[in-house]
């Protein structure tokens, strides 16, 4: 009986302890931030922090193969170590928007991607992530465009949207103050290098550097077309890249931004590098036989202080293989 009483008291004490722990747990969880409210929210870092100024602000290279051209273009700005410090994590943003082979001009040329990734790694970048959130199926886009293989050859990492945490990116824009997208990629990123291709665009006029930032955003970006020019200007103001290299080896001059026929593409044989997105896009517009000043998003970006349409005033360094 005495034995039983001791056991009972033990049981009582144990039950009281379990009750107390449960109650404490409940108090701890009471009105806590719900799981579904814990949304990743990132602000974009300064992608030029801790870098020396480039020697020149713009370079244009004509002719030669793409590897040579990219080399020369960067060299003219002072070399890749003006843009990437050892140990940096670099985000490279080509245009991988469509499930099309390179010759259709809808995507950045794989040679261009490969050279840029190589140069970043040569400058001792820790990781080079090649990122896009394409319109078509991402893994098909990376495969068919040849960009996936190019990145692998060069030793970089392809980051399709499913490999990145989605969340809200603070953009500070007038039309899009913030938007959901591939927020996770910017949490540790030090550098941002844009490598767009030169394309016609049904609504925007052209799709080059500024429009290319679209590929960092996700769900609901199909609303952007309601105020497309303003959105592109917002994006240009939000994403201040470390470096931009425009792939003008070929240009998609009609039926953009998808293309679809080889006859929509012309060989333009030039690439340009620099920091001023507006100037580079204006240069690319001329490559397609248009005027930057006629492109509404460029004008809006100028108003926001992103850059200048008159790219010649930057006195670009010109290199030619001839």
């Amino acid at each position, binding site marked *: *009986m005495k034995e*039983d*009483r001791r*056991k*009972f008291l033990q*049981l*009582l004490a*144990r*039950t009281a302890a*379990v*009750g107390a722990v*449960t*109650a404490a747990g*409940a*108090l701890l*969880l*009471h*009105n*806590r*931030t*719900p*799981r*579904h*409210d814990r949304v990743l929210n990132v602000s974009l870092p300064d992608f030029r922090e801790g870098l020396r100024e480039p020697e020149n602000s713009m370079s244009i290279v004509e002719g030669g193969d793409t590897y040579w051209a990219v080399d020369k273009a960067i060299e003219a700005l002072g070399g890749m170590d003006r843009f990437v410090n050892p140990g940096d994590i670099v985000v490279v943003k080509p245009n991988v928007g469509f499930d099309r082979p390179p010759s259709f001009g809808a995507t950045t040329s794989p040679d261009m991607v490969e050279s840029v990734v190589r140069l970043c790694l040569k400058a001792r970048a820790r990781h080079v992530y090649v990122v896009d959130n394409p319109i078509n199926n991402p893994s098909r886009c990376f495969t068919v465009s040849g960009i996936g293989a190019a990145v692998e050859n060069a030793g970089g990492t392809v980051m399709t949207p499913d490999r990145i945490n989605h969340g809200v990116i603070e953009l500070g824009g007038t*039309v*899009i103050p913030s938007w*959901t997208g591939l927020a996770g990629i910017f949490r540790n990123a030090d550098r941002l290098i844009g490598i767009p291709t030169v394309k016609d665009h049904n609504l925007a006029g052209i799709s080059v550097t500024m429009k290319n930032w679209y590929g960092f955003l996700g*769900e*609901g970006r199909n*609303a*952007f077309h*309601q*105020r497309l020019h303003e*959105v592109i200007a917002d994006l240009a103001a939000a994403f201040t890249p470390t470096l931009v290299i425009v792939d003008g080896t070929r240009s998609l001059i009609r039926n953009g931004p998808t293309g679809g026929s080889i006859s929509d593409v012309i060989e333009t044989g030039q690439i340009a590098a620099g920091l001023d997105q507006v100037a580079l896009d204006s240069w690319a517009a001329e490559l397609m036989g248009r005027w930057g000043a006629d492109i509404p998003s460029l004008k809006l970006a100028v108003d926001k202080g992103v850059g200048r349409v008159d790219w010649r005033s930057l006195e670009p360094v010109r290199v030619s293989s001839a």
Partner: protein
Amino acid sequence: MNSRHIRIVYQSFFLGLFLLLLIMSRTGWISAYPVDLFFWFDPLIALGTILADWTLHSWMILSIAVVVMTLFVGRFFCGWICPLGALNDAVGYTKKRPPREDREVNNPRPLFRLKYYILAALLVTAALGTLHLGWLDPFSLLTRGISQSLGPVVSLFGIDIHGHDVRFPGGWFAVLLLAGVLIANRWIPRLWCRAFCPLGALLGILSRWAPFGIIRDDEGCTRCRVCRTSCNGAAEPDGDLRRSECILCLNCTHGCPQDVLRFGSAIPMTERRAPDVAGRRMALAAVSGVVLWPVLRASSTDPGKASLTRIRPPGALPEEGFLARCVRCGMCVRTCPTGVLQLATDEAGAEGLWTPVMRFDCGYCELSCVLCGNVCPTGAIQPLVPSDKTDPDQPVRIGTAFYDRGRCLPWAMDKPCVVCEEVCPVSPKAIWTEDITVINRNGEEVELHRPHIDPDRCIGCGTCQNECPVEDLPAVRVSAVGESRGKQFLL
């Protein structure tokens, strides 16, 4: 007056309170009543929301009282408080059996383990993100079943407990489950509680080590097994009492001819019988949950996209969070003063069965009303104040109305109409008209006001759709696109 009578008084009181709160959940009557009171004390829902959304919402903290008491004395809640248990007892009472059969039906059966497996599977789906457990939670089941049936029944006698037409498109389905649960008592008493109830299973697990409970003095027991004939939990009071099954109805204590059964402290200590669940079967139940959740989600409306049919009430959380909180109790549906809120059958897909959706064929969302968010026990619908719905800059939007110009009378048939513009409740109106004069077939001039939606003003209340004279498929219809909780579709 014996313990059974006292218990019946308690059960009647709580059943009465439950019904009273449900009946008072009507606009005009509701003001002072905490109509979701019972849900605050439901540890199953509390645990479910903790697993699904990592938070214990508001008053549900009170369910800890039930947990702690159950840890000490066992499943008193099932026997004395649960209104569904009371109804089960009442229906079971309609069946009279000879004592031999009474013993038979109150024997433990392997089937009664099922509730533990159901609980395991439902907790797994909760942890994965959806409160499917609301399908079987006893308060949710009862609230749905009664609120969808009582109104239509009493309306036969001219009594109106809803304040709107008793039209419940998904009602029969919810009522059918409750009816099945109740009728089953004629086969085996409290079959639901013994074999299916996930809350009963949870409380059963908590009961196993209770220091207080039914005690049998073995020396005086003659093994007459009279106690077994009336045991409401099929807990074997004449053998090793199954504490996890005992619902403390106390029928055994006052029925014992030798008076050897009583409620008290568990001295002398006897062996404690664990719920009869096998680890392998439990693993199978958990795996079922892991299969069930993704399959149901894949079979349903995309939580990331606005839907034509899955239109949620104002204040509803974004869909993923909503599914992690909604216990499908239907309190919001019960309380809605216009009947626009209805239990979903297929509107939200398999995963969304019995979650609330707006059905503009049944009603419209009253601009000044915020009752649904105020009666939601789990915060799946956040409480709003009326000014949230009329905020000039950022009103809470349910969706957006779209015109079907092939059916709209002034557009398609040159008939004057614009009932929609008249009833549009926002200021300035979201519906504006293009005024023109046309020559009709008979050569007569007809002045027309052709309606348009201003998407910046429309809050998706659906008054236009509800009042449209083209009744079958209204010429203006609301979809969830543009809802505040979803993504922006207009810049």
